[in-house]
């Protein structure tokens, strides 16, 4: 029997809900967490809307030292990891540390810390030769995003393979795919994996303003994230993290762990077309979906729910709709598709892991989260996007996809525990 990876613990820091259950309640209620930016004064920006996490690091259990040392993205990751480990019921203190791996994704690393320190050391941009003498000791930790994986490894006592995966907006799917691979190949028995991003700062807002990728719907922030809707006008920037505990399947079953789902297929492809542009036909995302299905030995018709990338940009939602049709054929019209970015926004690299967490909870509870704010579908987006209201639905297999800058396309399949038979070793 080949080694397989299952999810046994989930931790989430998301806009509108700190913690797994508040997060799930929010999704199933169809509530949106997008609002006018409060983390800085957004007046000068084209897009003044974001999905912010109401996160208090001290209340979340971090020590003053940790709070001083860690960028907000690291704080999110560590708090999520703690919740995931507790949820798994694993006794990590009695797990050999070298058998515990870490795989964390992040698109932009410790941007907030880097920007705040830059403003200080450059005297608000006045000096190209920034003043090093006031640099905080952990400034280097902000410059290298690997710090995010370091903090999680220290938190859980991991000494096995540890990595920070940074493939832009597919980071959160790719990091979990990498984590599963560590278990499958035998490099680790337990992997703490997920992604984090805290990009809500002036430089991030400015760079997405510059390419008009984010929604300028400043008059109606609660309804600004409108995936698949004909009135959509860009994505809504967000922050957050989700971290999972993944274990080798037989070990998890032997200890009687609650298994949310099994990672049965993962694949990445790239369009080699444009850093930010997408071809309308969805060809490479469709290929990633097909390869993930092939690896899981599943037919297109076995997909019971698609958690879409659904960013709410004009081009993404059409690209993705085309990719689903291209990969699943007529089944694309039968399977419910939804985008939780309508509620929690687009937290760049983190969102892929937040969406996998949502998929695991959807499988576990047999409820599909809705696409909020979807009043009138774009005529070119003609699938069942589960508008406004969550839906009870029988699911054995769910698909989560991501699409990002660089042309990267990723697809991941999760299966409900015991729902999918492989007929022996998966080759």
């Amino acid at each position, binding site marked *: 029997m080949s080694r397989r990876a299952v999810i046994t613990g989930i931790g989430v820091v998301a806009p509108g809900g700190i913690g797994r259950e508040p997060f799930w309640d929010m999704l199933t209620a169809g509530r949106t967490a997008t609002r006018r930016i409060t983390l800085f004064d957004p007046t000068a920006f084209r897009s003044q809307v974001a999905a912010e996490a109401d996160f208090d690091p001290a209340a979340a259990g971090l020590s003053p030292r940790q709070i001083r040392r860690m960028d907000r993205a690291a704080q999110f990751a560590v708090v999520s990891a703690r919740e995931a480990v507790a949820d798994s019921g694993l006794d990590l203190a009695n797990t050999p540390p070298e058998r515990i791996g870490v795989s964390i994704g992040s698109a*932009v690393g410790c941007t907030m810390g880097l920007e705040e320190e830059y403003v200080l050391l450059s005297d608000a941009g006045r000096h*190209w030769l920034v003043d090093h003498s006031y640099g905080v000791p952990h400034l280097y930790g902000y410059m290298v995003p690997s710090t995010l994986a370091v903090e999680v490894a220290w938190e859980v006592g991991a000494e096995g393979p540890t990595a920070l995966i940074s493939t832009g907006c597919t980071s959160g799917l790719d990091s979990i795919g990498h984590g599963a691979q560590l278990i499958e190949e035998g490099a680790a028995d337990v992997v703490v994996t997920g992604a984090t991003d805290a990009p809500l700062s002036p430089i991030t807002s400015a760079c997405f303003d510059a390419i008009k990728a984010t929604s300028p719907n400043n008059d109606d922030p609660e309804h600004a994230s409108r995936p698949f809707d004909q009135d959509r006008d860009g994505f809504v920037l967000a922050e957050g993290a989700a971290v999972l505990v993944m274990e080798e399947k037989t070990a998890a079953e032997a200890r009687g762990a609650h298994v949310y789902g099994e990672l049965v297929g993962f694949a990445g492809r790239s369009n080699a077309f444009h850093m930010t542009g997408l071809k309308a036909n969805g060809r490479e995302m469709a290929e990633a979906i097909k390869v993930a299905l092939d690896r899981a030995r599943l037919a297109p018709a076995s997909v019971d729910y698609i958690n879409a990338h659904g960013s709410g940009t004009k081009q993404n939602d059409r690209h993705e709709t085309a990719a689903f049709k291209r990969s699943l054929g007529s089944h694309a019209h039968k399977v419910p598709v939804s985008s939780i970015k309508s509620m929690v926004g687009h937290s760049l690299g983190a969102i892929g892991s937040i969406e996998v967490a949502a998929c695991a909870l959807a499988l576990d509870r047999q409820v599909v989260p809705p696409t909020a704010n979807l009043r009138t579908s774009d005529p070119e987006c003609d699938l069942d996007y589960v508008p406004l209201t969550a839906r009870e639905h029988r699911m054995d297999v769910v698909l989560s996809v991501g699409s990002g800058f660089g042309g990267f396309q990723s697809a991941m399949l999760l299966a409900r525990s015991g729902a999918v038979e492989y007929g022996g070793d998966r080759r």
Partner: protein
Amino acid sequence: MTTADLQTARITTATGLPAPGQAGASTAAPVITGIGVIAPTGLSTEAHWSAVLAGRSAIGRISRFDPTPYPVRLAGQVPGFAAKEQVPSRLIRQTDHWTHMGLAAAEAAIQDAEANPAELPEYELAVVTSSSSGGTEFGQHEMENLYQHNPEWVGAYQSIAWFYAATTGQVSIRHGLRGPCGVICCEQAGGLDAVGQARRLIRTGSRLVVTGGTDASLCPYGLTAQLSAGKLSTVQDPARAYAPFDEHAAGYLPGEGGAMLIVESAESAAARGAGQGYGRVLGYAAGFDPAPGSERPPALRRTIAEALADAGVEPSAVDVVFADALGVPAADLAEAEALAQVFGPRGVPVTAPKTLTGRLYGGGAPLDVATALLALRDQVIPHTTGTAAPAPGIEIDLVLGEPRHQELTTALVLARGHGGFTAALVLGRAD
């Protein structure tokens, strides 16, 4: 280290069986068929190699900006790199210096491998780079624009130039590589992890992977950030500032650049008539140090043992070790102890040509891999400059003074990254 120790070491080999529907999946050791170097030591593989064998240091006073206000004024800069000649002009404007060098190195590596991506199956061509700090200089300029003016002054390319995936994305687009794309950030260790990931991709259906990395954070904010970690050497003599394992070791110097490598499935290389190229990737392992304050030992000894077990080679079969060589006394001692535990005191020749370039972060380990492959090709161990002699208690056979000519079959490359990342890669000579 005994054979019994080796047998108990965890074997990190994947099951290696091809996934369904993937004709390209490969189980044989992947081969490295192309090298592209853009480094302080040279703008080509052979220029780099001759500088290394001559012990010609590329350490000098920083010239990309005026380093006078900073306690560290020395670095390994890439001399004479003309982006205009090596990178399409449109991409120069859209990307950071780090990506310029990455694009140039990737193109050189693909040419060196004599691979034509257009003739190969597009979805079996992958890219995995290591990146440590992203487009720092570009980012500093755009933050200056933002804070000296207003958001409208921030350019459209900030969104694609600063983030850590910029190089992988641009390489994929430029060469039409539509397979899996990856970016690994494990500071200086990331380059070995990228090669390890390239091997995973080859085992799951990719046939050719552009891997390696470059880094460039030699701008004022980048240097300031590096200074904050307290590991840079403030010694002002370029010949002595970075002297790992020496009793006067006082930290390391930073550098820029790196190398790109073409890692290819053995079957694919054979089908193209590329043979075994420069050598084979025999083994890889990664580990992580215990959290600060732990009494547990660092991960290096175990990681070396796992990489050797993965490669199926005994310690006695290793002919040379390319050390991480941080230049910080406690870290040097820990590395020497791990090597003595695995190979015995002075049990294997050890070298660290990285003193010629400084530490290149995401680009450092790929350049070490390139250097190790050239050593295997030419049967010569390049020497370590800067270090006069191993400090008391450093029980390693450090190759000093001049290159050592001897038969070389197997090389071990080590890398450690800030915070505890640890990786080991075993390379075999082409048959």
